[in-house]
Every structure is written in C-alpha cells, then in structure tokens.
C-alpha cells in the first residue's frame, strides 16, 4: 500500500463558519485536536464565510463529528477515506510499479 496505508480512514472535513462566533468556536476546537489544515494554511487565517478544509486523522474523526454537531456548526466531508483517494490519484503509478 502507498505510504504503508497510513491514511486509511482519515477524512477531510469542510467547514464554512457563518459568523465570528463560529470562527472562535472552530479555532478553539482546533486548539484541542491536531489537524492538518489544507486551507487556509493556518488557524489564524480562518475567517467567517471562508472555506476551511482540514485533514483529520482516523482516531479524531468521530470526536470532531460529534463536536461540530454539538456546536451546531454545519460541515461536510469531501474526502471520506483519504487512503483511497491517494491510491486513486496515483493508481496509475502503483499499476506502473506492478508492471
């Protein structure tokens, strides 16, 4: 498996904070779990009405789902299994490797 299967079950969440309050709640949340921000590049750049995409490790996904629901912050998951997307991106490559 590519990258030793390390991204199995990791997800990418998308949140668009609607107002300053949601921005603050989200920043506080991100202070407690380690996520890899895809956009913006840093939590300090999170703004209301601006998209936040974050890569969340498998073990943190359930907690983040629950926390976002509890805070009433709308979100969606645009990559539900990161390992699969990685395999797909370079599926040709691994096939090439097989060849």
């Amino acid at each position: 498996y590519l990258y030793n299967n390390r991204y199995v079950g990791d997800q990418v969440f998308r949140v668009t904070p609607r107002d300053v309050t949601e921005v603050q709640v989200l920043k506080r949340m991100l202070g407690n779990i380690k996520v890899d921000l895809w956009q913006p590049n840093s939590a300090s750049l999170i703004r209301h009405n601006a998209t936040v995409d974050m890569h969340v490790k498998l073990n943190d996904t359930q907690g983040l789902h629950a926390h976002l629901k509890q805070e009433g912050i709308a979100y969606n998951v645009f990559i539900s299994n990161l390992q699969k997307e990685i395999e797909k991106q370079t599926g040709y490559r691994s096939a090439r490797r097989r060849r």
Partner: protein
Amino acid sequence: SESHYDYEVYHSLEEIQSWMLEVNRTHPEIVDMFSIGTSYEGRPLYVLQIGKRSRPQKKAMWIDCGVHAREWIGPAFCQWFVKEAINSYQHDSVMRRLMNQLNFYIMPVLNVDGYHYSWTTDRFWRKTRSKNHKYHCRGVDANRNWKVKWCEEGASSHPCDDTYCGPFPESEPEVRAVAKFLRKNKKRFKAYISIHAYAQMLLYPYSYKYAMIPNFGCVESAAQNAVTALYSAYGVRYRYGPASTTLYVSSGSSMDWAYRIGIQYAFAFELRDTGYYGFLLPEALINPTCTETLRAVKAIATGLLKKC
C-alpha cells in the same frame, strides 16, 4: 527517453531530474540546464533555461514550481511548460516569438527535499526538511522564508507549524539559492511566477498589506488577460487580484519579494482544484489543468513584449 516521457502522470524527484538531463541533452539549441545550489539534504537545485540562444541580455521570465511539497500539480505544470515550449517552437509562431525574445527559467521543483519526502513518507508534507536542533519538528514554509515582511501576520514563529517562517529570512538553502540567482540577474527578469495549488486563483502583490502596487493598472490587465486565456481552454474560472484582498493578508511571500527587488510582474498561481480532490488532484486532470495554465502563462509572457 524524452519522447516516451509521460507528462500526464506524477513523477518522483529522481524521474524529474533524469528527464531534465535528457531534455538538456536532446535540445541543446534551446535548453540549458544548470544548478543554482544544493538543498538542505544536499540535493542539486536544477533550473532549465528555455529560449533561443541569442544575445546574452535577453528579457527573462522565472517560473518556480513545488515550493510546497504536497502541491504535486506544480511540478507537473513546469514539466508540461518545458515540453510544450520545446515541441511547439517550430510550429507555434507565438511560442517561437516568445522564445526568440525571452528566456524562460523553469525550476520544476524548488523544494526538492520536501517533494521527495511527500513521495516516500508523508503525502501531505508541505514544508522543507531542515532540522531545528531545539525542536523535534522539521521544515520551514518556503513561502514564508523570504526577506520581505518576514514572519509577520499570517506566518508562524513556531517550528512545528505548517506556516513556520524559519529562524531567519532565507534560512532555507533552497530559498537562499533562488533569491541569490534572481538578485544577481534582476535587471533581466521582467516576470516572476510561482506555481501553487488548491484555490484556482491568480494573485499578485501585495500579500502583506492592502495598498495598491505602483503599476497596478498594467499588472491587473496582465492578470485579467491571463485568466481570460485560461478560461478559454475549459471554461474554468479563476479569481485574480492582489493576494491580500483576494485571499488573505499574510506575511511576505516569494511573489512579494520578487516585486520588491524590482521584477515588475510577479504572480502566484493557485491551480486546481478548489476542494474536491484538494492536493490529490488525479493524474487524469493534469492535462486540462496544465493546458489551461499554459495559456495563462503565455498571455503574461506575451504582455511582457508589449509596452504597458
């Protein structure tokens, strides 16, 4: 060999470097390969000069790719540009005129250590791979390490953050090498372009303040022409404008640094997409993404040959 090289897949750093050597070997009349230094881990920092050999003081355009390791579509575009420039020199009059009057300096992978690491270990690595002896975290954000508004808002002074600005400006040998080369040749460089991913935007200075650049009119029209050309390929709309208002205020990036040393047209492209595949843009989208971006870059280059 070069003719069998597949430009529609992502390549490892080793494959890219072998390809550069092959292109240099097979097109000596319009390609010249050289190194501007070595990376933190000791890898060469290769650049390809593309253009008809003629008078030494030709105007020049710089394009770097792969500043952020995980943005693989960048290096794919740099290779695509070189392929198109070489293949179309004979039959495309626009490209031929550009290459007769300009030299393009293409750096397919600026952050060579990070790119290699993103291939072998962590697909989502962003930074360089320098070590900080006081912290276990490695790497500096190569786009926050330039000597312009260094480490101010939008950058982090913590080594474990993804936007870490580094211990001092140009601390990263990769950034220092590019800065030194551009400084040394700044009179010839009329345009600087840095290729990034994941926003579908064309940005120009300033990142670090809301002020308007002195030649705003010319740069804005160059950007407008570029995104219009890009749109003409597949109808993909790019936003464009000053980075501070189009994206967000951040500390000085390579684009701001290039503008500050006097390069009149400095841009950062943020290529596809805007959040469907994110950094994992499939290989099937390399062709359309690079085709549309090539049109935009040619529009900017053509603008350099006109008076504004």
